[in-house]
């Protein structure tokens, strides 16, 4: 994978860091001149992935969330969100729309659906007891002068 630029950061699984993660990813991606809609899509997908790590990965516990954001050739954005939490026993089921294990927190079960809709590619690797890694890619449009 040819990488034109990259940031990596790590943060504790505190819910107040959801907005911090969005802000950090946004400020990095701005160099690729995304449209307002593309930036909004990426911010939303990142928010969903980080929230999943906090709410589901580290449910009732705490740990660290590692993010990698890369700018790839041909205006492609690569984002990886990794936690070392409880993992997902059945990834396919977890990705079904409206499936949630936290209804009491009013989780809508749409996190993965949002990531899939707003990004071009989504990959979820998980192992029970070891954690989950979500990888997303999105190609930015060629626009303006």
């Amino acid at each position, binding site marked *: 994978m040819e990488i034109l630029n990259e940031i990596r950061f790590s943060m504790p699984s505190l*819910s*107040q860091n*959801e*907005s911090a993660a*969005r802000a950090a990813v946004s400020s990095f991606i701005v160099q690729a001149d995304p449209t*307002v*809609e593309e930036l*909004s899509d990426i*911010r*939303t997908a990142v*928010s*969903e992935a980080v*929230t999943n790590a*906090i*709410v589901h990965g580290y449910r009732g516990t705490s740990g660290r969330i590692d993010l990698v954001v890369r700018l790839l050739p041909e205006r492609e954005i690569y984002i990886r969100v990794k936690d070392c939490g409880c993992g997902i026993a059945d990834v396919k089921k977890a990705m079904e729309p409206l499936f949630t294990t936290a209804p009491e*927190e*009013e*989780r*809508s079960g*749409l*996190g993965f*659906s*949002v990531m899939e*809709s707003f990004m071009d590619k989504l990959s979820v690797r998980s192992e029970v007891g070891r954690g989950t890694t979500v990888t997303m890619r999105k190609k930015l449009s060629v626009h303006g002068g």
Partner: protein
Amino acid sequence: MNIDIRSEKGMAIAVLKGEIDHHSAKKAREQLDCFIINMQPDVLAMDMSAITFMDSSGIGLIMGRQKLMKECGGRLEVRSPQESIRRVLRLAGIERIVRIT
């Protein structure tokens, strides 16, 4: 996010400002539920014109308030969401359950 609620003759408008995510939705939920339970409005309109970001946590926030309003004999409306917010609402199909203007 902050919420300013005005109420007159059974019609309440909650003006939401800022970003809705899992972190901010919790406080919003508590504030709105407290108002609904105490004031029992016929209609609660969530004015989302000043919401600059919303992920699927906002869907849970809206659906939960819709459920509570219904239990209290009223109804919920969503007003003036920006286009980026509308896209999340459309993805959830929320317009089938809550009136969006």
